[in-house]
């Protein structure tokens, strides 16, 4: 098992380097002069010359890439052109807010999505099923910005609609993100459980004389949650890498907001930093999903151990 995990981690290294390379090249092609972004337009020529030299801006792209990679390995992702602070410290500052939001939204979505999915599957085509699936469909299909704005309108004056200074500020953005995630989870749990309930071993469990509740909780649920675990890991990693729209809408200074600000101000080092961070989080999330999956499913465990 440990060997398997180490192998998986090693595989992520070339993936990360590849991503860094792609982002670097893409952002190098984008027009715009970083020095203009930093200093405005009225700068002396010798200052430009000196800064270009020290920031390696006159070197060819592959030399700059090598410099970037070398620094990145040492934990230095450059300095934001606009904010003049190191990219790592900016992300380190923003991440706790994103983390709090992501964890709240994820817990909310699991606590609602999984039971709703189970009830919908067991009481298929009942009123509860239609109600839950209707809510789930809305959560999945209404874009975050409209849900967010509708909630802001409704709860304006009752709950804080912008900023991030108290736990109360978390409620609305977590609702926006959680509703969407819960919708996906509920629909997946329902369809997966319905499929499992048709399986032969469910018939065996019923033939044993088990009550319907024991059959569902004891025999069907664990099997039906296997695809849900994967979905949960994908969701939490995308939440952790920053909910761009929701964070912007609710003025939460998280990683997503940081990325949007970087785009708006052509702040290349900061943008590179946030994108690489996002990639790393998603890779970690997938790894966590694979490990969890093999814990839950003995068939995979044995193959992974061999």
């Amino acid at each position: 098992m440990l060997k398997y995990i180490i192998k998986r981690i090693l595989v992520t290294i070339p993936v990360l380097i590849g991503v860094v390379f792609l982002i670097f090249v893409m952002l190098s092609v984008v027009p715009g002069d970083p020095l203009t972004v930093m200093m405005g337009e009225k700068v002396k020529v010798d200052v430009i010359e000196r800064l270009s030299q020290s920031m390696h801006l006159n070197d060819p792209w592959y030399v700059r890439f090598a410099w970037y990679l070398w620094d990145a390995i040492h934990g230095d992702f450059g300095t934001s052109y606009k904010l003049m602070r190191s990219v790592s410290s900016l992300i380190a500052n923003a991440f706790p807010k994103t983390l709090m939001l992501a964890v709240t939204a994820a817990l909310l979505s699991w606590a609602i999505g999984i039971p709703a999915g189970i009830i919908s599957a067991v009481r298929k085509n009942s009123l509860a099923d239609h109600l839950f699936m209707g809510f789930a469909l809305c959560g999945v299909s209404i874009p975050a910005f409209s849900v967010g704005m509708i909630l802001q309108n409704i709860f304006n004056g009752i709950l804080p609609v912008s900023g991030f200074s108290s736990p109360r500020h978390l409620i609305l953005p977590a609702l926006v993100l959680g509703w969407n995630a819960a919708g996906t989870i509920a629909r997946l749990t329902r369809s997966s459980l319905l499929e499992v309930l048709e399986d032969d071993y469910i018939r065996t469990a019923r033939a044993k004389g088990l009550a319907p509740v024991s059959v569902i909780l004891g025999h069907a649920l664990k099997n039906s949650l296997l695809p849900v675990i994967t979905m949960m890991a994908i969701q939490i990693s995308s939440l952790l890498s920053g909910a761009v729209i929701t964070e912007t809408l609710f003025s939460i200074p998280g990683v997503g907001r940081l990325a949007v600000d970087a785009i708006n101000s052509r702040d290349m080092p900061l943008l590179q930093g946030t994108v690489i961070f996002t990639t790393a989080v998603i890779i970690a999330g997938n790894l966590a999903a694979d490990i969890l999956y093999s814990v839950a499913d003995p068939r995979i465990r044995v193959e992974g151990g061999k």
Partner: protein
Amino acid sequence: MEDALLQIRDLHTTFYTRDGLVRAVDGVSIDIAAGESVGIVGESGCGKSMTAMSLMGLLKKPGKVDGGTILFDGQDLTAMAPKDKRKLMGNRISMIFQEPMTSLNPVITVGRQVQEALLLHKREMSRTEAKNRVIQVFQLAGIPDAAKRYQEYPHQLSGGLRQRVMIAMAMVCDPGLLIADEPTTALDVTIEAQILHLMKQLQEEKGTAVMMITHNLGVVAQFCTRLYVMYAGKVMESGTVQEIFKNVCHPYTEGLMRSVPDMESKERLYNIRGMVPSMLHLPKGCRFCPRCQYSMARCFDQEPGLYEPSPGHFVRCFLFEPEKGEEKP
């Protein structure tokens, strides 16, 4: 039969589909005495499995038992509350299924799956006692390294071993009646012989009655003392295996027997012409007549009753109607 353990009387099971009513089991009566092994034989779709599913209460929607009684130990299973019925299932009546590969839960160890039945029905038993009992039953079921196998998952076991686990699960509470729904169909021939031998042995040791559902007459000849032949939801012929094999009456049973491959014969293997009729569009009159080589005009619009050409041997065919009394050609 008055001392029957199981008495199915005029059982009707209907599937309420969008295209119409499908009478999968249409007035079936079956008796099984304690300790007896009875074969239910027929082609796919003849209602033999549905009879068992009705008995176990495992019918899937839109199927429903809508007539008849199933007396087990004098209690009517069709009139019982689900809660009381569950106390019998897996305990006094248990079942083995056709597909050993998929009938076990892939994420639970086989030991725990068998132990579950024991803990459910024998409340006084502690976990350790139950575990020891499961390992003991595994050994009885011919599972080598029973203690090690106890904590393995189904995918680590072969098909034959999985079916032995299913048998252990069915036998762990010492049931009065074991329903085996084509227990060896998915296994290869050598394993089939071993599994049948094991079931025979357990049956003789424990005195369990067995309802053997199969399409294989060889299995019946080897395993059963009495036999019911089903076709399109009805019992066509019933009697002792000895009597029916010696003096086969119903044209359908005769066709089944002639369809068994014979190693010595050089002739082309016989098959019953035509196909099992769609249960939605059953022929009027005798259900077998469109495929029957002896069919007469009246077979096409009248349904034959059950006639008794010799004591205990029943046949649903006009050829054996007493007053006509004519022998078949």
